[in-house]
């Protein structure tokens, strides 16, 4: 990863900081009630307020006070509604702008070409189709609803099968958010946060980061790599259990023992062909995956089939999110930068750019 000096970073991120300050200012400004006129309740409020004053003036204290109280409640209700609506709009719009600005800056900083896609746009645009919102500076930003997200060049069945293999959940059960796509040499990648949020499984049932890599050439077999938790925890008995699990995988396979003891400590490999497994899992690639396992505090699941490699980092982190209402602007920039840098580090560690990995 490219290292920047503090001054360089400050200079590069100054516009973003300005945008974030603007966002905070917009939110604060939204607290001032606007658009009260023209709203039916406003007419009621305007009629009731003088009426209450009139009754008080006439000595009808109870009636006047009740009407004034009602007026106050209507005013509060209108004000709250307007503020909430405006803050929500500002939030949605600002988040898009901020993340888009950020990725644009990050691409400049790291000299990578990534795109950011999010499903949030459908809240703003109320559309269920891909919508381009910005283009330029070597980037194309577009939003689309998560339900429709699926990379190109993959059939629905294949996508579903790969997703189930690495997460245990199908497409209908998972929400995909903060989708980032890009190209690393010859290999196209798609990254997103996945969770079972808002689904029948409940919010915290499953969370993870999914990295999907699309290769030019196609594999002639299957390879499935999972954390070696069972053997690590259960020793001989665990190994026996692993064998029973592999029979439930959606393809014919066997457990393949690799020639790297360090890799074997972290992963178990299931595959259709020992030579194919050794062909893909070169010593260097195994070193990279071992490094990834050490670097990430996540369980890592990998499925290789045809032209696709699906890598699931199962963790509870919520990446590419920020809460500007609570945190300081510099803190949020640091957090966002960490998230992007972490993704870049994963990509660089796996080094799937075919200089380190063979696909036949």
């Amino acid at each position, binding site marked *: 990863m490219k290292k920047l000096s503090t001054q360089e970073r400050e200079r590069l991120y100054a516009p973003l900081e300005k945008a974030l300050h603007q966002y905070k200012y917009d939110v604060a400004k939204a607290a001032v009630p606007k658009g009260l006129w023209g709203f039916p309740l406003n007419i009621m409020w305007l009629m009731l307020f003088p009426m209450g004053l009139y009754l008080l003036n006439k000595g009808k204290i109870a009636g006047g006070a009740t009407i004034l109280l009602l007026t106050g409640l209507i005013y509060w209700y209108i004000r709250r509604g307007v503020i909430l609506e405006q803050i929500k709009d500002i939030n949605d719009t600002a988040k898009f702008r901020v993340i888009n600005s950020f990725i644009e800056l990050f691409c400049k900083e790291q000299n990578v070409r990534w795109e950011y896609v999010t499903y949030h746009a459908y809240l703003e645009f109320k559309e269920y189709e891909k919508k381009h919102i910005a283009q330029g500076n070597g980037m194309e930003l577009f939003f689309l609803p998560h339900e429709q997200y699926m990379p190109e060049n993959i059939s629905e069945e294949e996508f579903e099968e790969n997703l189930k293999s690495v997460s245990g959940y199908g497409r209908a059960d998972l929400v995909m958010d903060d989708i980032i796509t890009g190209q690393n*040499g*010859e*290999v196209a990648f798609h990254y997103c946060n996945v969770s079972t949020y808002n689904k029948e499984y409940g919010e915290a049932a499953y969370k993870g980061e999914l990295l999907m890599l699309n*290769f*030019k*050439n*196609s594999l*002639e077999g299957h390879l499935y790599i999972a954390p070696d938790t069972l053997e690590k925890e259960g020793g001989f008995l665990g190994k026996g259990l692993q064998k029973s699990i592999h029979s439930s995988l959606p393809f014919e396979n066997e457990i393949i*023992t*690799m*020639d790297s003891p360090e890799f074997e400590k972290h992963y178990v490999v299931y595959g259709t062909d*020992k*030579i*194919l*497994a*050794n*062909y893909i899992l*070169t*010593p*260097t*690639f195994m070193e990279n995956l071992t490094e990834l396992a050490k670097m990430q505090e996540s369980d890592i699941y990998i499925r290789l089939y045809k032209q696709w490699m699906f890598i699931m980092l199962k963790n509870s982190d919520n990446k590419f999110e920020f809460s500007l209402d609570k945190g300081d602007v510099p803190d949020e920039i640091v957090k966002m930068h960490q998230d992007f840098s972490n993704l870049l580090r994963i990509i660089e560690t796996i080094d799937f*750019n*075919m*200089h*380190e*990995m*063979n*696909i*036949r």
Partner: protein
Amino acid sequence: MIELFGALSVIVLILIWMYNFLIHKKNEVENLVASVDTTLKKRFDLIPNLVRVVSKYMEHEKNILEKVTELRVQAMKSGITQKEKISLDQKLSSSLGAIMIAVESYPDLKANENMLHLQRILHEVEAQIAAARRAYNQTVTNYNNAIEMVPTNMMASMMKYERKELFSIAENERENVSINDVSVAS
């Protein structure tokens, strides 16, 4: 009496398990031998083309080319032992490596389209052979462990199983080929 029968049954079951276990290991090695042979054959098929292309340019390396051709003939002979096969594979690998280094001294040959194509295929085939060797070595290591470790070593000795040779893996086989050099194998 029942205890004796029970103990004998357990011993017989253990013997059957050990026998099947060793047969399984032996068959795994034999399967891998067949797969290694298939990948090695890809290299043998490539050698005549390679020799034909480079011999037009390489005047001073005739002996290397003759050596490669001779090694190919020997390696393709039927009935050679696994030990001989491994030794020939090592010699062939180093001779082909020498040819590829020599190619660097011939700019015309280096730029020749046929040569570039052959280099790409050879690179890919070498990567497949490297994978096959590693898979073979892992399987043979499991087999060798099984015939040398207690208690299966006793059964292995009765079955006259012997240690098998491993391929030596060159350090440069840790490096990988670029996607540009890779072709989709059939």
